[in-house]
């Protein structure tokens, strides 16, 4: 009964909002329908609706998957500095970080589902019912760690919110170890995802030990970028309190991550270009394109330029400690990492292919629409869950408020009649 009332209350919360809220919901819904119809084409005709072919057998979907693993991982890693620097609203930071992680993991799984040729056969890779290739296939590992990470976050978030809803204290002896556990788990999901590519000797472009470290550093840029923006929105619209200093500290940590990333990338470039072996072809394609095909080069330069500008904005104390320039930097770094993971990490790995042949891949309309569907679905989910969390944390949505309401409704009834 209580649970039903809780659900009903949640439903009320997510359906109530201002004009901005409704129009963004509407916008997301339109995107979901538009994308979903595109995906339907793919379901009907197969992956031939994408621009992937035997030469470039993974593309935009897997790129998005990789990017979102990074977002999922970094959102939770923010818990470390929150502890160390003892920011006040630590519980709230944990909750919103983990909600973001949950939504990102769900989107990851969706990108895998739309990428595989036979999504209905998904159970073949599960243990017991199927024949999971554990421990040999890194994909099984990845699935395993992602799933574990997902469970961990769901448990923590629902426990914290549930207890708050019932006005009880959360169980510290359970939650604290779980939150601490979710930190290495966050590192694990991104590392294992990097190992997915990095352990393939057939693809020299990925076959570098720096891939996993690079993944982690970029994740430390893109995940906190989302949270910086989110915290400011929350601070404006709710009772969530976070001091400017905390935001600036996040930004400072991001500068370190960016610097390390830059260093790794330069090391990689140096090795490739100075040794100038035949593996240079992938890097050439990445930076200059091949013949007339420069699409990927445009994306990689866009990513480099946005990344460097963000780095400069974050490095100079004056622009770092100015909310406007800080936010510009956060947006820039987010998109820089998005292009890097989504496009320029996967595609040059396949161009040229293992027999030296060039197939020039750019995502098809179907791929873009399907991705739009997943991203807007994820955004919608994130909005709903955050709205409920905000109501519970800051707006006094609790068992008491429900009971009070029930009483006033009862009282009001005869009057209304």
């Amino acid at each position, binding site marked *: 009964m209580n649970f039903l009332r809780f659900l009903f209350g949640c439903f009320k919360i997510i359906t109530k909002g201002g004009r901005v809220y409704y129009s963004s919901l509407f916008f997301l819904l339109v995107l979901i329908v538009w994308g979903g119809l595109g995906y339907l084409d793919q379901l009907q005709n197969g992956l031939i609706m994408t621009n992937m072919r035997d*030469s470039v057998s993974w593309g935009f979907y897997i790129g998005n998957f990789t990017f979102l693993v990074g977002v999922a991982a970094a959102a939770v890693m923010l818990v470390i500095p929150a502890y160390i620097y003892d920011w006040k609203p630590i519980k709230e930071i944990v909750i919103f970080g983990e909600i973001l992680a949950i939504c990102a993991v769900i989107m990851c799984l969706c990108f895998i589902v739309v990428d595989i040729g036979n999504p209905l056969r998904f159970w073949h890779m599960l243990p017991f019912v199927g024949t999971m290739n554990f421990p040999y296939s890194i994909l099984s590992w990845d699935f395993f760690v992602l799933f574990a990470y997902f469970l961990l976050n769901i448990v923590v978030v629902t426990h914290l919110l549930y207890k708050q809803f019932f006005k009880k204290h959360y169980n510290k002896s359970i939650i604290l170890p779980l939150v601490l556990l979710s930190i290495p788990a966050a590192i694990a999901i991104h590392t294992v995802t990097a190992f997915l590519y990095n352990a393939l000797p057939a693809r020299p472009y990925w076959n570098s030990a720096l891939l996993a470290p690079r993944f982690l550093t970029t994740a430390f840029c893109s995940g906190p970028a989302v949270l910086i923006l989110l915290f400011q929105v929350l601070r404006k619209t709710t009772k969530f309190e976070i001091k400017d200093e905390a935001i600036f500290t996040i930004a400072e940590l991001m500068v370190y991550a960016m610097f390390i990333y830059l260093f790794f990338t330069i090391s990689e470039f140096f090795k490739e270009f100075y040794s100038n072996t035949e593996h240079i072809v992938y890097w050439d394609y990445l930076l200059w394109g091949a013949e007339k095909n420069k699409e990927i080069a445009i994306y990689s330069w866009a990513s480099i330029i946005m990344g460097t500008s963000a780095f400069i904005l974050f490095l100079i104390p004056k622009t770092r400690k100015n909310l406007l320039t800080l936010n510009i930097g956060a947006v820039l770094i987010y998109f820089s990492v998005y292009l890097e993971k989504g496009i320029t990490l996967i595609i040059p790995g396949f161009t040229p292919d293992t027999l030296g042949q060039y197939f020039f891949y750019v995502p098809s309309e179907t791929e873009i629409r399907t991705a739009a569907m997943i991203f807007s679905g994820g955004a919608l989910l994130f909005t709903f869950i955050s709205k409920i969390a905000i109501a519970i944390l800051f707006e006094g949505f609790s068992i008491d408020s429900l009971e009070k309401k029930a009483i006033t409704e009862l009282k009001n009834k005869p009057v209304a009649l």
Partner: protein
Amino acid sequence: MNPISQSMQKEEKSNSRREFLKKLPVLAVGAAALGGCSPEEIEEYFQQNFKTLSKEEKDEIVKNLEKKYSEKYGKEFTVSDSPATEGILFGYALDLSRCIGCRKCVYACVEENNQSRDPQVHWIQVLQMEKKKGIDLVHADVHYNPEKVPEEGHFYMPVQCQQCRNPQCVSVCPTKATWQDEDGIVVVDYNWCIGCRYCMAACPYGARHFNWGEPNIPDEEINPITHYLGNRPRTKGVVEKCTFCIQRVREGKYPACVEICPTGSRKFGNLLDPDSEIRYILENKRVLVFKEELNTQPKFYYFFGV
């Protein structure tokens, strides 16, 4: 909400509604397909990994498939599930000095192995290379198309599955849908493959091919003598590859490419039989394996016969 955005909303809505209505038949068909699944289809859906099944279960499955394919293509089909024979390890050798790049093997393979004609699937890729550059992939071309082969200054290197002893494609597959049988042939269970294409990323020889769309083969061109792990008709969304013509070699015949090659560049045999032609080549010619630095240890050798 202001009137402008309202009317915009209406327009958007009616637009997406129109599109939606167009799709309605598809949705209906989908729902009908789900609801109207025949018991065989449901059984097929729950079929387990072929490798884990008993002889009886395998026989039952291939019998059902024979019936299904015979009805679908209007001719008598055989689907074999013959296992590997002890004491046989298949090996292949290709004479780079004889190959003229005519691509007869490519098309013989397509016909024998029921590869889709449209979209086109080729298990064998012939690379044209420049003589003065040697085996150099950066300058190799699969799309060469002159009036007459061989072309001046070029040589040809056909590439197909190298039947690695240490196959990357098998280690990465998350579902064990692909494996190396006892006679060394790397096979795919098309009913178990989920189509994740991890194996394609892992194969260093571009040997694995994906059915991006529904495969199409004219009924009169279909080869009805098939093997479950080889050339039986595939569906969209699964990976396929060269199996040394498993349906032929397990019956003691040569692969189709070996038979068709007009220059006799292609040699095939049992690596465990000291008197086989393949062993003769290994002993008397100098062979090389492609991308030996990757430690895939192919059972497919290249050599220079003349």
